[in-house]
């Protein structure tokens, strides 16, 4: 297990990266992989939902609402193509804007342009601060939810691994005890087992002698009279 690399596509503080082989060794055979883009999408969806709910609660005019939506969308939409080019579903955000007639649109176009260029009013600032806090809180909540969900699964798996490891240790211990008993019995029955290396050495020496004596075999000698290394 290692700490998450800094170049990870989705840096999660206090998270960890597990080597797949390590997990397999621990008996984990199946994993659900949640991609970074899926996590982002989930977070965006949650954020858009929270934003809709908040805009429904506060009393603001259509222009301000649109301004907030535009600014929120600029944060929500993926601006960096290197991260994730997949489109973000924001239908919950877009329909929140009230239908605006062409006349109103023409009427509002000038102030909107000036509003986007000029400094924000106190109320707008307050709303944006409130929105920013809400966004931050929802992001954190969402991430914490995902992390908690993962942690729960990891903890469950780790508990299972721990149980299995304990069971394995118990089995090993039982087998080791049995082996010791068997070995002890064999030691009594067959002390020769301890002399295998000596036997192999004798066999080797016999074969070395066989090779070296081949040319020296006396004529007429046919039966093997050697004791093969004894």
């Amino acid at each position, binding site marked *: 297990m290692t700490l998450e690399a800094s170049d990870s596509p989705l840096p999660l503080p206090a998270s960890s990266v597990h080597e797949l082989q390590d997990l397999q060794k621990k008996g984990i055979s199946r994993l659900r992989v949640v991609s970074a883009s899926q996590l982002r999408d989930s977070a965006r969806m949650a954020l858009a939902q929270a934003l809709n709910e908040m805009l429904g609660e506060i009393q603001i005019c259509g222009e301000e609402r649109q301004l907030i939506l535009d600014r929120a969308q600029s944060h929500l939409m993926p601006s960096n193509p290197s991260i994730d080019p997949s489109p973000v579903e924001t239908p919950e955000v877009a329909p929140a804007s009230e239908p605006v007639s062409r006349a109103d649109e023409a009427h509002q176009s000038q102030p909107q342009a000036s509003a986007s260029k000029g400094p924000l009013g106190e109320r707008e600032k307050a709303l944006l601060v409130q929105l920013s806090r809400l966004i931050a809180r929802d992001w954190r909540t969402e991430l914490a939810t995902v992390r908690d969900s993962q942690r729960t699964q990891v903890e469950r798996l780790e508990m299972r691994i721990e149980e299995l490891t304990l069971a394995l240790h118990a089995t090993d211990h039982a087998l080791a005890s049995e082996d010791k008993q068997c070995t002890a019995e064999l030691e009594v029955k*067959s*002390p*020769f*087992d301890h*002399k*295998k*290396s000596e*036997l*192999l*050495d*004798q*066999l*080797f020496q*016999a*074969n*070395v002698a*066989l*090779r070296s*004596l*081949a040319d020296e*075999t006396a004529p007429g*000698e*046919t*039966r*093997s*009279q*050697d*004791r*093969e*290394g*004894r």
Partner: protein
Amino acid sequence: MTPEYRTQHNSNKDVALPWASSKTSILHVGIDLGTSRSAIASSNGSREVMASLVGWPKDSVSARVLGASILVGDAVLENRLALHTCYPLNAGNLAFTELSGPEKDASKKAGVTLLDALRKASNPRPDQAVCAVIGAPAEATRENKQAIVDLARDAGIDGVMVVSEPFAVAYAVNALENAIVIDIGAGTIDLCRMAGSLPGAEDQVTVFRAGNYVDQRLAELIREAHPQVQFTSNMIKLAKERFSSVVDTENRALVTFPVAGCPTKIDITPQLRSAVEELVPWITQGIQSLVATFDPEFQHRIRNKIIVSGGGSQVFGLQEALEKGLEALGGGRVTIVDDPVYAGAQGALKLAQEMPEEYWSQMRR
């Protein structure tokens, strides 16, 4: 890197081997070199048993039909009518050591070919040096053991050690102490007393009446009972392997042999049982000689741990027949090994694997 090749020093120029030092790893191999059949087991899991028989096409026509200049193993039996055949082993020993002239050369070449076929059956990789322990008859002559080493090296086996065949079986079944191991082959029955050390000459007995003797006696007995029946030694061998038994059973050994060209069913049960039973006294005599010369305090132990292996151990009722034969000696307990055909090769493989690598390095030089 191109491997360095050398020419063999002996008269056989057919085999050129890559120099052992160009090989980076070892394949351990155990070989049971039998008179009738040979078995090989290797550390990569390969196992094979083949007839210890080599054949050359009789003429250019048969060479063309067979598509090979030399055949080895069971293919020789199948095509024996088109081949000059040669058993490289006779009564457990390499036959060429007792021959001279062209026959000697042919027999020697057959031995190299058989060992080469066994080596190939172990499926070594090009970078692997083949290090083999070869089981030889218990009373093989020193000359024969050396001949096995020479032929094995000519066949491309890089490191060779020779071991008594019953000792290899004892090593396989871990019966290295207070036991008698009997290897019933075609050419010999080898008995070996295991006393906790490498067996010497006095610990081993070879009976030169084995499977081939049974074939011979069976042919004689059938010829006496059914003079009109036509058969070959191979037909007798097949019938023996199919029906051999030393006990009275309801099963009859019915074979179809031609009589004046007409396939005829004949019952060879009494002849077969009689021929097989003739071996039992020879085996019990061998056991008796090994027991009688053993430490009196431990004689009862080896009598009660008699282990039988080899193709001949598959005779139905042999275990009971031997125990019955041992009753006159005070009784004994006989066990047939689980894998009699491969027990020798497996024991030789176990020896090869447990042999220290530096020993193999020396044997490969």
